[in-house]
């Protein structure tokens, strides 16, 4: 039984595409067949983060318009053979998306993959609506700040009202990822606490990803952080992927790093 999972946020820049890449790769590392689809038509980014920039020949719009076959457009990840990538068109814009064509594409992808992960564009316009239209589940990515929470709240409202499942009286299953959490700032009360975010959004928590400067470098290198065994953010994404694969993994709240004695001494002599 395959699932279509849309990754949404409402606000831009909170880490949707990074999350898509890491979660997709994480799921593939658990031995599941997974495809990540870039739905941000005209602003393709996922290819770079996955390090597959130079392999893009055909895109999803060409597949939908039957100018290319699906297997021609699908790109296999270098990092894990279970992961495939379907790029967005960089030359067209969001207006090319049509419901029937998307439905057919997703049906074809469902036949091949257990997990179909869609990277939604920022905002709540037609591109977003098309991404969530046929989703079974949604991952909502937020940063612990009020504007991100409000925008994602709006996006969830649209998810409930405009998705096929929502219209048929059902509900798209929702998971929340709180991204870029700085435990120090949370401790000082400068960031929204996890409980407050959960209360406002009333969505089940899938995971908390700590702020990690390594993520940016990993994205630039096209080598997602989930592959990095040293990285805390990578570990958080690995746990998230396992939870999505049905494993019961306890939640880990990011902790403030206690400075070691040597570090303290170094600080003294700085």
């Amino acid at each position, binding site marked *: 039984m395959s699932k279509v999972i849309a990754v949404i946020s409402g606000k831009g820049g909170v880490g949707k595409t990074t999350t898509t890449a890491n979660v997709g790769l994480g799921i593939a590392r658990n031995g599941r067949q997974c495809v990540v689809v870039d739905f941000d038509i005209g602003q393709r980014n996922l290819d770079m983060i996955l390090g597959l920039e130079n392999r893009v020949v055909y895109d999803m719009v060409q597949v939908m318009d039957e100018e290319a076959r699906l297997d021609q457009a699908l790109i296999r990840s270098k990092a894990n053979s279970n992961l495939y990538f379907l790029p967005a068109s960089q030359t067209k814009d969001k207006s090319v998306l049509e419901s029937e064509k998307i439905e057919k594409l997703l049906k074809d992808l469902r036949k091949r993959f257990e997990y179909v992960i869609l990277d939604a564009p920022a905002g709540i316009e037609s591109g977003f609506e098309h991404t969530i239209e046929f989703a079974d589940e949604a991952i909502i990515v937020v940063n612990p700040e*009020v504007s991100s*929470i*409000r*925008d994602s*709240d*709006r996006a*969830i*409202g*649209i998810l*409930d009202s405009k998705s096929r499942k929502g219209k048929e009286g059902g509900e798209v299953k929702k998971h929340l990822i709180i991204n870029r959490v700085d435990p120090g700032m949370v401790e000082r009360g400068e960031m929204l606490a996890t409980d407050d975010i959960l*209360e*406002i959004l*009333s969505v089940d928590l899938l995971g908390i990803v700590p702020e990690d400067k390594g993520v940016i470098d990993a994205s630039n290198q096209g080598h997602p952080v989930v592959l990095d065994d040293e990285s805390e953010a990578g570990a958080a994404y690995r746990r998230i992927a396992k939870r999505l694969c049905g494993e019961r993994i306890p939640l880990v709240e990011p902790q403030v790093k206690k400075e070691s004695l040597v570090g303290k001494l170094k600080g003294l002599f700085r």
Partner: protein
Amino acid sequence: MKCSQYNVKVFEIGIEDPETFLKFLEANRALLGQHLLSIHGEMTEEIYDFLESNSLHYVLNMTLPQAKRGVQRFRMLRSEEEEKALEERSTSAEHSSDTVAKEETPSLPKELAEVRDWLRKKRGKSPEKEAQKKETETSEEALSASDEEFPKAPPLKIVKQALRSGQSVRYDGSLLLTERINSGAQVAALGSVIALGPVEGNISSTGECVIVPPIRRGTLLFHGRTIENDALIHPLNKITFVDDQVVIQPINKKEFH
């Protein structure tokens, strides 16, 4: 055919003594600039000059349709009116009004009955115009726009799910909201509003009372007046009008029993 609808606030005023009248106008010029003045009585040249020089909008001795009347003396009326219709002498005038009660808080059923009468009258007037008109954003307008689906005597409507940003509930009766009202959500009722969950969105009510917990974010509009969030200090606050004063009282436990 192009059609649109606006809301304006009407200030109704009679000229009994030109001097007092001018004094009143002068004192309240800033406030009146945002209203359409509906003037009754005999116009003098000074009054005319004053109105023109201050570019105040006014109509003279005109009977404006109203949902509720209750003015004899100089007294504030809040009303909606199709501004454009007046300016362009268009034929598609359509408006409504509601009064801020001065002497006593209006009992809810009476007010609702009047709102209903107005809705019926409006509906009978021109149904196709209703369909064509462009909706404006103000809450009163939205309330009138969505009247088609409402039953004749609106019962209390209970909203049991949380309101998310961008979602809105509009109703011409009273509302009970049991869950959260998130930032960016909107609640508008002609009747009373009772919100039991945390309120971060906007509430507007023209009913008998509003009952809310403290509001950290979001605004509360009661009969067109903004209720300061700092004033809501009780676990549950009951906001009413007493002698035209906004009164905020705590809800005591015994009132629940």
